[in-house]
């Protein structure tokens, strides 16, 4: 159990008295949490994901995610091999690299190939339909044409089809990589980014909020100014602005972007908590017995607001995982050679048009499971830490 840092003279027990220390509030909160079945199941799922992330990060799992173990777009085993084509064509190597290269270039709209596809279909189906307005010039049309051509002439790419299987347990992607391995690898990126960025943002927000709320006056004014500056720019716009100037792509960049922009919510809450606790009688009593500012701030108040910090951290992890997925989807996130749920969704979007839904489902299910579990766990955590709120919440 967490013992607050005030030194407890446990060495000295001069009398015969019952010796066990009573359960503290953390212990009681943990007991309440363990009695919450939904909360515990959610916690187990979250822990499982984090373990998976660590295993994958250390190369114990999904190390070979990039190996092309199946045929291109290998369907899931339970669906059966592609009836239409037995083994769909592997895009010719150059076509694949062009396509990858294209969405790397940030001028190109990653949607363009879908658009091309859609336009093609539409034109074929209803030639008289009004032409869609506003789409940017489509630089990918010829690539798509290539792919379609390749598909039509499916025998054109013999490649390594002999060692590839026709189906994979849960399907394969465009190059025949196993989507399960890919999803695990993707979870590594998304979860790590989410947790790391949430730690940065929570640390900043807590520190700023504590100082501003505790000291008040001009210190508070200064931090409030800083807060209102960040807060008057909508969060997404701020992220995009950071993404625009930070050209260097990579996990560190995206952690920094999310961390540096995401502290405001934590700041607001922690500042309010410190304002509230500062005038509470137990803090005034600490002042009366001569406790210093630092002692009041960290030894007295902090343990009493730490549950807010914990819940905020938990909420931010969820938010940042979602944000990372969007950023990576847009190509502003992790580099191209790193797989994340966002880049998977990006590929999946194109594949869906071709009827290859498994990558979309894999990424969506993985993310929804983790985020749902995390959110339910956050609710349970909040209830456990603040039993007064119970009954207000649904569970």
């Amino acid at each position, binding site marked *: 159990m967490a013992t*607050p840092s*005030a030194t407890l*003279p446990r060495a000295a027990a001069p009398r015969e008295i019952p010796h066990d220390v009573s359960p503290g509030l953390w212990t009681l909160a943990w007991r309440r949490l363990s009695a919450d079945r939904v909360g515990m199941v959610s916690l187990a799922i979250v822990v499982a994901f984090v373990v998976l992330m660590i295993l994958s990060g250390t190369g114990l799992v999904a190390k070979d995610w990039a190996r092309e173990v199946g045929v291109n777009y290998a369907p899931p085993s339970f669906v059966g091999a592609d009836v239409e084509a037995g083994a769909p064509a592997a895009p010719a190597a150059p076509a694949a690299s062009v396509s990858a290269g294209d969405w790397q270039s940030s001028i190109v709209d990653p949607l363009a190939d879908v658009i091309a596809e859609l336009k093609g279909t539409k034109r074929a189906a209803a030639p008289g339909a009004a032409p869609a307005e506003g789409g940017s010039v489509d630089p990918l049309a010829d690539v798509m044409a290539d792919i379609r051509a390749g598909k039509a002439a499916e025998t054109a790419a013999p490649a390594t089809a002999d060692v590839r299987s026709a189906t994979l347990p849960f399907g394969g992607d465009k190059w025949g990589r196993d989507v399960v391995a890919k999803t695990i690898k993707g979870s590594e990126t998304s979860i790590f980014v989410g947790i790391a960025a949430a730690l940065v943002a929570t640390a900043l927000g807590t520190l700023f909020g504590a100082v501003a709320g505790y000291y008040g006056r001009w210190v508070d004014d200064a931090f409030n100014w800083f807060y209102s500056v960040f807060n008057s720019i909508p969060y997404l716009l701020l992220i995009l602005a950071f993404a625009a100037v930070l050209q260097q792509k990579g996990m560190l960049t995206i952690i920094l972007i999310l961390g540096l922009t995401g502290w405001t919510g934590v700041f607001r809450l922690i500042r309010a908590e410190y304002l509230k606790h500062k005038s509470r009688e137990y803090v005034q009593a600490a002042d009366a017995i*001569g406790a210093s500012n630092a002692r009041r701030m960290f030894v007295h108040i902090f343990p009493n607001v730490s549950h807010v910090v914990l819940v905020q951290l938990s909420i931010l992890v969820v938010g940042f995982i979602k944000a990372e997925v969007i950023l990576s989807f847009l190509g502003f996130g992790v580099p191209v050679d790193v797989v994340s749920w966002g880049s998977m969704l990006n590929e999946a979007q194109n594949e869906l048009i071709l009827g290859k839904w498994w990558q979309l489902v894999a990424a969506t299910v993985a993310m929804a499971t983790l985020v749902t579990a995390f959110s339910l766990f956050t609710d349970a955590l909040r209830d456990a830490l603040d039993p007064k709120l119970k009954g207000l919440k649904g569970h």
Partner: protein
Amino acid sequence: MQRDSAPAGGEPLIQVRDLRISFRLGGDATFDAVKGVSFDIPNDSTVALVGESGSGKSVTALAILGLLPPENSIVDPRSRILYGGRNLVGLSGRAMRDLRGADISMIFQEPMTSLNPVFPVGYQLCEVLKLHRGLGQRAARKRAVELLDEVGIPEPQRRIDAYPSQLSGGQQQRVMIAMAIACEPKLLIADEPTTALDVTIQKQILDLVAELQKRHRMSVLFITHDLAVVGEIADRVVVMREGEIREQGSAKEVFESPRDSYTKALLQCRPALDRRPMRLPVIDDYMGDGRGPRHLDERPRGISPSDPVILDVRKLGKSFHVREGIIGRREFKAVSDVSFALRRGKTLGLVGESGSGKTTVGLTLMRLHEATTGEALFDGRDILSMSEREFMPYKRRIQIIFQNPYASLNPRFTVGQILTEPMLIHGIGDGARQRTDMVFELLGKVGLPDASFYKYPHEFSGGQRQRIAIARCLTLRPDILICDESVSALDVSVQAQVLNLLQDLQDEFRLSYLFISHDLAVVKYISDEVMVMNEGKVVEIADADTIYRHPREPYTQRLLSAIPKGWRGARAGA
């Protein structure tokens, strides 16, 4: 109309029979709040339901109107609350709603939150008239003005469009009462209606309720924790404790010859204005082995000029600034020009209603607020103008005990840590072992078991927590203790225990107390000298006995005359 269905003459208006209510606590655990309660409310009379916190008195009242929260409360289906031949337990929602506000109505403790803040009071008043009397907008408004006038709201024509926040606490409660009597109910349930109000307002509301009861020949069920409040208005008294009825009978019987030991204790624990025993009787004197109260001989009080002055406060002032206009700031003087002397080993009582600035005085002397003007000489040195470092040794010598025992102890610390910390900061005691010994000694002194050392504040009751707060102050061996409403949040029986403890400590350590309270009876009991404050200024300062017997200022006189006198017959006898 509904009135026709009301019971006639001899039969009581309401018969409560074997009422049992329990609450779900989560999981399978339940808590029995009311354990088989039976009593009657006769026609045209006032019944007082008296008990301390946790006695189940409010739960009983809410059950009559079916207002208990359905999520977690269970009323035993065999319980009966009979009204006009009908059992109100298990009555359908529709039928119950027809009774509420029409036949039986209710007012609550906090008038501010009990009125809907976003509707004008007239709207809320008309709502009930339209619902139960079927009046049109115009007729309802006309009747609403009459009602506001009847409950003593000045300028009812204008106030009818006011929002609740624009009225004072007393006026808000008057509006609640107007709403409750709008449909001429047979029974008015008043749940601690005066507890949140100042003593002078409390008196006005009590008088109003009594007057309306007579005029409308309705019955009143008056719920309170304070026996003294109902002494003047109750016809019958029901005393509850921990979900059971301890005693019931006519007010005369209960006040003059209580049979139950708990009732006796309740009547005696509360300090009276005309007596000052050495020790207040506490509940244990009557319960358990029942040896009866001891040390009841009169305690001498008052100061003599020869008593040494320990704290000399001169022209103390504290202002707050409120923003106004474009760049303007308005100064609000919370305290101005307050001077007094606190003598060693004596108690100065500081009395005032809410907003009088009495708490600000205490906090400013502790330097928890910065004083705007004035000085406070402690052993001849002004502690208000010292630097933080210079003040440190004096800080040890002035300590404070706050009102709310639930907020003044850090919930994350064990009692051992709470009591050791001040000694650590001020370097009192040699090493952990000696400090621990001192803590155990203090725990004994304030009447807590040794095992408390390893427990957290949430495991203690309100009175025990206040003892811990007192022990925390004593670790520093202070000269002055500021008690800021320190017993106001406690039940009467616990209050007596804590007051006795404070008195014992003063006798032992020659402590000086600045005792701040709104409760004149408590201040009278504990103080040698009393200072009355109003709107930030000192009204009167004098010997405790002098000020209660011969108040000079009209404000003091008004304050004193508003104190509930308890049983009307008792005064003649004493």
